[in-house]
């Protein structure tokens, strides 16, 4: 255990994380500290390394160098399933649900995830009344209550994004990593998902990737800006929005008259 001078350890801390892919550096020397209960955004154009950073935090990838700590405990070497058990949940940018399974089966799988019952062989999963009731409750939180017996492959895109978040919430994480939860949603669906995110319990630490700053507004209180794998700025949302370098690099280089040498062509983000 690392000692944290001045009180509680941060919910999630990354120390000098680096990760390269065959010589290309995707994440370079990123250090982050997210306090418990914070609402934290990670902003950056496409290809900035946001998802790679998430994969390092959640354990899908191992860092080349650097470390990750969850509530002061070093989890750098733990596989994803162990991190989940310690309270670190995540969603995926490219939706990963169980499309052959119904909504109820999806949620049931998630609810069994942290209990020993997931290895139970002899009792039908439908007979776990408490679990199926909890799954129905979860679905109701998002208006999926009438879709419990629908196969996930038949859901609309918005419902799929909602199910994605519900799967992560089912594990009652203490820290939740959300990888662009609003990607590809209609404006109405965005409002739905923002409403759900703001309704989450205050003690839950939320870390959210987004390349559209508008979605983050009102949901997160502080953020970090990633560009070409490195942290460019970190602070409150107001500070981020007023940061000159951030404006120049990320918000389209307002006032630079078309001269944007540091920004790759696709960096504008989706409209």
């Amino acid at each position, binding site marked *: 255990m690392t000692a944290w001078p001045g009180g509680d350890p941060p919910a999630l801390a990354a120390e000098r994380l680096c990760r390269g892919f065959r010589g290309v550096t995707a994440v370079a020397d990123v250090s982050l500290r997210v306090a418990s209960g914070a609402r934290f955004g990670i902003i950056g154009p496409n290809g900035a390394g946001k998802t790679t950073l998430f994969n390092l935090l959640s354990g899908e990838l191992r860092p080349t160098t650097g470390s990750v700590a969850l509530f002061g405990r070093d989890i750098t070497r733990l596989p994803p399933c162990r991190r989940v058990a310690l309270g670190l949940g995540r969603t995926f940018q490219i939706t990963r649900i*169980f499309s052959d399974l119904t909504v109820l089966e999806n949620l049931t*799988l998630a609810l*069994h995830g942290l209990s020993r019952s997931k290895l139970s*062989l002899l009792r*039908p999963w439908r007979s776990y009344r408490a679990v199926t009731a909890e799954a129905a409750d979860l679905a109701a939180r998002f208006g999926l209550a009438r879709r419990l017996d629908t196969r996930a492959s038949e859901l609309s895109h918005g419902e799929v994004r909602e199910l994605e978040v519900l*799967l992560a919430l089912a594990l009652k994480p203490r820290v939740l990593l959300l990888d662009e939860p609003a990607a590809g949603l209609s404006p109405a669906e965005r409002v739905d998902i923002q409403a759900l995110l703001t309704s989450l319990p205050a003690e839950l630490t939320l870390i959210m990737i987004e390349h559209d700053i508008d979605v983050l507004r009102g949901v997160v209180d502080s953020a970090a800006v990633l560009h070409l794998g490195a942290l460019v700025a970190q602070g409150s949302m107001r500070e981020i929005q007023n940061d000159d370098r951030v404006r120049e690099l990320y918000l389209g280089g307002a006032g630079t008259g078309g001269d944007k040498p540091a920004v790759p062509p696709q960096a504008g983000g989706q409209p």
Partner: protein
Amino acid sequence: MSAGPAETGTGPLPGGRAGPAARATLAVLRRSRRLTGPVAGAAAGVLLLLLLHGNGFTSTLVLDMLVYAIAAMSLDFLGGYAGLISLGQAGFLGVGAYGVAIAEAHFFSPWAAVAIGLGAVLALGLALGIVAVRVKRISFVIITLAMGQVLWGLAYQWVGLSEGDNGIALATLPSLGPFDLNDPLTLRMTVLAVFAVVALLLVTFVHSPFGLSLRGVRANETRLAALGYRTGLHRYLAWVIAVFFTGVAGVLYVFVNQLISPTTMAFSANGLLVLMVVLGGLGSIWGPALGAVVIVLFQQELSIYLARWQTVMGLTLIAVVLFSPGGLWGLVRAAGRRRDALIARLDPHSRGTS
């Protein structure tokens, strides 16, 4: 597990608009919902009758169907649920069978030989599983194919142990007091009982949280890991269960045929097992049992009348894959769904209850 919903509710018949013809159709359709039990009972009855009163040829045919049904259902547990199609399963059937035959040839008592056969296949499953779960999809198919071929090669060439091409005959079957497997009737009932137990266990497994996790492995393993599952462990357990039950089928195989030779483990035997699963319906447990019945029937009955029985089998398989991707069991399920849809259309009151 059942073909249609077990729901037997009899809501009020629609008055007014529906004519007498529609009402009669509806009544027939409703009644057919209650047929799942009787149909399964009738199938079991026919099976029992054939085993009790059939001549030696018929009962051997039925016993072979049951033995291969056990192997096909085990393969379906692995392939249809966890998405791991093994092309080496006949090899493990052979290990169970050879285990019993070799042990008995080395003067072990018949019961000890059974324990040795089952122990061998379990140990092999536990050991090879460490390799098998490291790969997925096509690599898994290739690795299991290689395992099956190695086992077949051993049976074929390790003449000192396996007697090579000739195979090993099994002289005596186990007996315990009045329970004597050398008695044909006892053997028939025992095979039927083992089939029933394995089928029941596998159906129970696939409806358990573990069975659900296997479907999760197939649908999206990364996501399952992100939900706290050690997915490798789940694939390993599914493998060991499937290999062990296939070994059980092997023990019964050598009991029924009283001979085990390398042909039983040849590449074509692996292919036939996969055919049974695909023909019957991947991911349905009962479907592959049906597939085993059909294919054993083709192999042993049709081949008497028709030299080109394999052509017929091939065409049948193509037709099933083209018109019912869910296999024969998929046809049964689709019929049940169509009936329920028809009931819902004819009777607005039944909406929401089924």
